[in-house]
C-alpha cells in the first residue's frame, strides 16, 4: 500500500523512537490531539506522556527546552504547529542552537519540525516558506523533503544527526503525495540532492512542493522535445553543490524554482553559485521562478496567482529552450 508523506514522517519518527529511548517529542497539541496535521497521531498511545510532551504555547521555550534536553543526552524532536510560528522561537534557533558547537563544542542534536508552505488557504500566517532565514544561519541544517520516501528517510536522518536540523514539511504534500516505500529500515543522507527526473536540455533546481510543479512542467514540455532535468535539493544546508553544478554543466541552462518569495530567497544563492562556478558552461541566463514579494494572500484567486504555477514554469522553460 502506498504511504502518504504525513504517514511517512510519522513512521520515521516512530521507528526512531522505537530504536532509541532518548528520542522524545515536544510541541503544542501533539499528544492526545496528534498534532494540528496529525503527524504524531497514535504516538501518545504507543509511547505515553513521558515521551510525547504537550507544551504550553511557547515556541521559544519549546526550542529552548529541546536544546537543554539535548545537552543531557536526549534527542528531542520539537514541533512548531506551523512554520510561521518559528519566528516566535527564532532567537533560540539562530543564536542558541546554531552556535553552541562552534562556540564551546557543545553539540545540539535537536530537530525542529515545521509544517510550511501554501496551497491550503492558510493566509499570511499559515503558509510561509521561510527556509532562507535558516539557510543563512551557519550551524543549522535545513531539510525540506518533497516525497514520502525522502520524508521518512530524512526525518530519520535528522533525528540521528548531531547538529540542529530545521525540518520543513510541506503541508500541501502531507496527503497529496504518496508512494510505496522501500521495505525495512532506511535513511536518506542529509546534504545529498536527488535528480528527480533526468534530462539534458535545461536543469530545474528546486525543492519541496515545487519539485512536483517542476516535474509536471517537464512532462508538458517533453512533448515539445524539451528535455528537462529536475534536481530536488532536499536539503539546503548542507547544500549539494556538486549535483547542481554537474546538472548545469550537462544542460548549460538552468532555472531555479521555489515557493518562497523571490527577493532574498535561497534561489539567489543557487543562481549565484551556478553563475560563479560554471559560467563558461552557461548558454543562457539563470532564471528564477518564485512567489512575488508579498505576504501569502488568503483568497483563492490571490493565492493561486501567488504560488508559482506549472504554467509559469512551462513558459520559462520554453523561453530558455529557445534562447
Amino acid at each position: 500500500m502506498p504511504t502518504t508523506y504525513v504517514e511517512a514522517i510519522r513512521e520515521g519518527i516512530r521507528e526512531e523512537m522505537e530504536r532509541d529511548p532518548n528520542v522524545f517529542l515536544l510541541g503544542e497539541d501533539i499528544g492526545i490531539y496528534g498534532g494540528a496535521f496529525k503527524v504524531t497521531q497514535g504516538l501518545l498511545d504507543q509511547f505515553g506522556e513521558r515521551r510525547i510532551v504537550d507544551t504550553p504555547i511557547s515556541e521559544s521555550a519549546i526550542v529552548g527546552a529541546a536544546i537543554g534536553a539535548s545537552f543531557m543526552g536526549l534527542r528531542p524532536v520539537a514541533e512548531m504547529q506551523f512554520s510561521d510560528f518559528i519566528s516566535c522561537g527564532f532567537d533560540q534557533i539562530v543564536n542558541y542552537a546554531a552556535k553552541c558547537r562552534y562556540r564551546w563544542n557543545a553539540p545540539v542534536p535537536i530537530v525542529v519540525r515545521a509544517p510550511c508552505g501554501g496551497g491550503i488557504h492558510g493566509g499570511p500566517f499559515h503558509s510561509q516558506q521561510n527556509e532562507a532565514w535558516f539557510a543563512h544561519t551557519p550551524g543549522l541544517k535545513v531539510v525540506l523533503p518533497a516525497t514520502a520516501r525522502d520524508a521518512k528517510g530524512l526525518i530519520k536522518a535528522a533525528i540521528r544527526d548531531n547538529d540542529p536540523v530545521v525540518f520543513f514539511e510541506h503541508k500541501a504534500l502531507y496527503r497529496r503525495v504518496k508512494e510505496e516505500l522501500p521495505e525495512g529500515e532506511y535513511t536518506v543522507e542529509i546534504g545529498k540532492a536527488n535528480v528527480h527526473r533526468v534530462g539534458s536540455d535545461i536543469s530545474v533546481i528546486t525543492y519541496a512542493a515545487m519539485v512536483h510543479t517542476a516535474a509536471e512542467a517537464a512532462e508538458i514540455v517533453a512533448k515539445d522535445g524539451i528535455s528537462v532535468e529536475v534536481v530536488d535539493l532536499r536539503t539546503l544546508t548542507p547544500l549539494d553543490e556538486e549535483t547542481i553544478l554537474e546538472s548545469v554543466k550537462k544542460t548549460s541552462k538552468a532555472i531555479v524554482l521555489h515557493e518562497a518569495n523571490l527577493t532574498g530567497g535561497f534561489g539567489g544563492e543557487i543562481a549565484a553559485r551556478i553563475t560563479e562556478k560554471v559560467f563558461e558552461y552557461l548558454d543562457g541566463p539563470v532564471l528564477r521562478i518564485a512567489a512575488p514579494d508579498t505576504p501569502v494572500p488568503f483568497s483563492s484567486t490571490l493565492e493561486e496567482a501567488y504560488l508559482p504555477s506549472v504554467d509559469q514554469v512551462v513558459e520559462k522553460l520554453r523561453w530558455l529552450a529557445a534562447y
Partner: protein
Amino acid sequence: MAAVKLEAVHIDRGTEAKAELSRKFLYYMALMREVEERIERRLYRQGKVLGGVYVGRGQEAIPVGSGLVARPDDVLFPSHRDLALYFIRGVHPRNVFAQYMGRVDGLTRGRDGNMHMGDLSKGLVAIISAMAASVPVAAGAAMAMKYQGRDSVAMVYFGDGATSRGDWHEGINLASVQKAPLVLLCNNNQYAYSTPLSKQMACQNVADRAVGYGIPAEIVDGNDPFAIYEATRRAVEHARAGNGPYLIECKTFRMTGHSAHDPADYVPKKMFEEWGAMCPIQRMQNRMVEEGWATGEEVSDILARIRKETDEAIEWAEKSPYPDPSELTERVYEPK
C-alpha cells in the same frame, strides 16, 4: 475546573437603563452567535469558507459585556473569539461574511481570512496569528494615548493559552512599568486548542499572574455580560485615571472545537453539558423576561431581526467578487 457559579451581577442603575443594556447585550451576543453558526455550520461545510474557522460560541458575553463599555476613542484588540466587538464598532455582518469567504468586500479584501481583520478608523486592530502578539502592540497604543494626553484606553483580548507566550509577559510588563492605560481581557475557556489549563500553567487563575506586574486583577463570570460590563467599567476607570493596566479574567468555556475541523473529542462530555447550561445568551433571555426588562415576544423579535439581517448579509456577501489576481502585488508598501 467546575463552572464558576457566581450570582448574577446586579448593576446600580434604573430599570430602564438596565433593560436597555440587556437588549443590547442580547442583540450583540445573539448576532455573534448567529453569524458564527452560519459560518461554521453552513458556509464552511458548503466549502464557501476556506481556511480555518474559530468561533466564540459560549463566550459571547466577553466581547459584548466589555465592548459596550468602550468609548469610540478607545482602541480594541480583539482575539479570534471576539467577533461581537466588530459589530459593536459598526462593522456590518455582510463584510464579515465576505471576509470569511475571501471576497473583496471583506475587511482585508481577501488578503487575510477569518478573524484576522481590523479597521483603524473604527479603532479595531487586526490580530496576527501568533497568540498574544497583540499585547505589546496594545501596550504601545496605550503608551501613545498617554503621550498624547488623551484619557482613552486600549483593550486587548486573549485566551488562557496565550498567557504562556513571552509576548504576553513582555507586553504587560512594559505597560505596567509605563502605567499605560491598558485593559487586559482574558477569556479563560480552559483549553488552548486541545491543551487543558493544567498543561498550560501551574497557577490556579490567569489573574494570579497580575501579581508579577503589580497590577490589579479580578475574576468574573465570563458568561454574564453584566458582570463583565461592571468589571470593565472598574478597569477602564482605573486606566483612564492614570493608574496603569488592569486585568480581567473571564471564566468561561469554549462550546465547540478549537476550530471548525476539530471535533474536540479530548473534552469530557460533562464539561459541555455543565457549561451548556450556562449559555450566556439563554441566561440573558431568561433574565430579561424574569426581571421584566422585555417580554418573551420582544426577545423573539430581536432574534428574528438578527436572522433576517444575517440572511441578507450572506446573500449580499455571496455576490461580492473574489479579488482580481492583478491586486496581488499591490499595497505591500505605501503606493508612490
